[in-house]
């Protein structure tokens, strides 16, 4: 997760729903509306069509995909690409690796980030400000700069080319802590004080009282972490080299960047791209309302 997502989530966590109003529509306004629909429709088509083409092309033969790239439907339906994907290409192993890593990283991030966020926002302890300042500084470090350094440290610690090396460096991210901290600060203190007076300990207060109230932020964190770790590429590139540690991202990258040999094998590559996007798409559609109302997302730039 990057600073983008933190800022986005924080900036929009509280939004007012627009209040609908009825108005009379003039002819001029109607014409503008129609124009708007046309433009937006066209744009939406441009945004969606690549994915539709990919799905359609994955069922085409190699030659058909090369010669008729725009057609959504194949001339002759062919499952050859999918067959290859599940036999010669170890797609299932890649998926298993990705799933394992994503589950662990997401769970750890949700747990540790909220823990640290709570400590920074609600608890009083010495050194709090310094740690928070350090957090902000850390968020300023761009991911890309860390590629070589992380490789060196992993090598130094002997964690290179192992699941531990792929997972541990990313189980906590500063942006997530920041999101949780901002959210905790919006929860009224009175609830906690009440619990504390009732005799609950610090961890109990956190776990049973405050955390359930933070559900919106936790869901946000969950979605961001899931997406971030499922789509992570550069870290997996530098932290491993064995073929059996390939995740979906590094595996599909090896397919696209030429491991296939000669010939245009687009259906295979497209099928892989489509399949690897399904889990994040599912999470997206399930949590759509929440995502689209709190406006966070991944940074691709």
């Amino acid at each position, binding site marked *: 997760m990057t600073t983008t997502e933190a800022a986005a989530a924080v900036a929009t966590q509280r939004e007012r*729903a627009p209040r609908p109003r009825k108005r009379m529509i003039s002819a001029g306004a109607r014409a*503008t509306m129609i124009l708007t629909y046309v*433009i*937006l429709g066209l*744009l939406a088509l441009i945004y969606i069509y690549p994915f539709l083409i990919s799905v359609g092309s994955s069922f085409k033969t190699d030659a058909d995909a090369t010669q008729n*790239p725009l057609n959504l439907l194949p001339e002759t339906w062919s499952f050859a690409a999918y067959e290859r994907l599940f036999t010669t290409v170890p797609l299932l192993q890649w998926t298993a690796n990705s799933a394992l890593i994503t589950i662990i990283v997401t769970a750890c991030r949700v747990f540790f980030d909220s823990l640290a966020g709570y400590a920074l926002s609600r608890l009083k302890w010495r050194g709090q400000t310094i740690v928070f300042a350090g957090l902000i500084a850390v968020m300023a470090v761009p991911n890309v700069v860390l590629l*070589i*350094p992380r490789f060196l440290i992993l090598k130094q610690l002997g964690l290179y080319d192992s699941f531990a090396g792929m997972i541990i460096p990313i189980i906590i991210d500063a942006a997530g802590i920041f999101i949780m901290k901002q959210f905790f600060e919006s929860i009224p203190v009175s609830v906690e004080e009440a619990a*504390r007076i009732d005799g609950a300990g610090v961890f109990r207060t956190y776990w049973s009282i405050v955390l359930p109230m933070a559900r919106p932020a936790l869901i946000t964190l969950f979605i961001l972490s899931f997406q971030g770790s499922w789509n992570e590429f550069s870290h997996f590139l530098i932290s491993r080299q064995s073929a059996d540690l390939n995740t979906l991202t590094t595996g599909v990258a090896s397919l696209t960047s030429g491991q296939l040999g000669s010939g245009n094998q687009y259906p295979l590559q497209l099928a892989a791209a489509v399949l690897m996007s399904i889990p994040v798409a599912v999470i997206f559609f399930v949590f759509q309302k929440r995502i*689209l109302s709190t406006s966070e997302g991944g940074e691709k730039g």
Partner: protein
Amino acid sequence: MSKGIRGPEGRYGWLFVAPAILIIGVFLVLPILLALYVSLSNWNGLGSPLGNSGFVGGENYSKVLLESGLAQRDFGTAIRNNLYYVLLVVPLQTALSLFLAVQVNRRLLKGRGFFRTAFYFPSVTSSIAITTIFIFLFTSSGAVNQVIGWFGINGPNWFATPTGIFSPLTGGVPGDGPLGLDWAAWLSGPSVAMCVLIILAVFTTSGTFMLLFLAALQNVGEEIEDAASVDGAGAFRTFFSVTLPMLKPTLFTVLTLGLIGTWQVFDQIYLTGGGDPGKTTLTPAFLAYDTSFYNLKWGQGAAIAFILFGIIVALTLLQRWVLRDRDLGASGVRRQKRALARLMRDAAAGAKR
């Protein structure tokens, strides 16, 4: 009294942040320090850098920045490519996402949810998947060229054309520019292949920023727009004079995030051949990786990574400074509220006439 209840907080506070401090310390701070050392050394990649290398001071940095030669030229090329990428992607994605947000936000629009989903969906998928799809779409006989063909234009061989798009105009400019490239090279613009990556970036990030603008627009509220339009302001006037100023903070966020993100582009470069064609899609991030992992010049690669870090930090600070004056302080907010109140009074008065 409060101390009694909050007594053990000190211990718990540290305990709760301990994992975070540990992980971030070991896997972020420590690596930076180690890489800093490597960038000042002549480590050759064998064994641990701490034992088997010699300190050479700023030699790696001067090789990349100051001494004329291939290393400096490659770095200059990478900076030039990334510069054009930034200069094109950031305004385009900001403008497009703002446009989309404004359109999707309109009250009278049916199917808002559908449009929002459509525009945001590309942001959810992995850069690897999208790049794979784009490679398919932009082959010389691919979907994009077929569509352009309907308009009678012969599309270029997108990924294989290294000529910069401005080079017909600027090809004759004489003289040598900074970092070992001559001015004609600096001014040649992004290559056709780079343009595909620019389109890709705008495609995948406009959805995210659209959501940011949407949230901000909904905070702006409708009464203001109503007031302005009753007052006689047309749609454009309302937008530029009323809505846009109120979006300044979000605009600022979007620009900052865009700047930070575009200077880090790596995945797409890796997947499309690492600089092909003709090193016109080479970027500093990939150059650092390539120099270290392929050419085994770890010190130089680390130096490039740190220079990139410096660029990003400098740009972010610069942008904060440039836009800080116009950020709404407390007095600015009051001023704006008064202006809005005045606007609404006028609207009410106007409606009575």
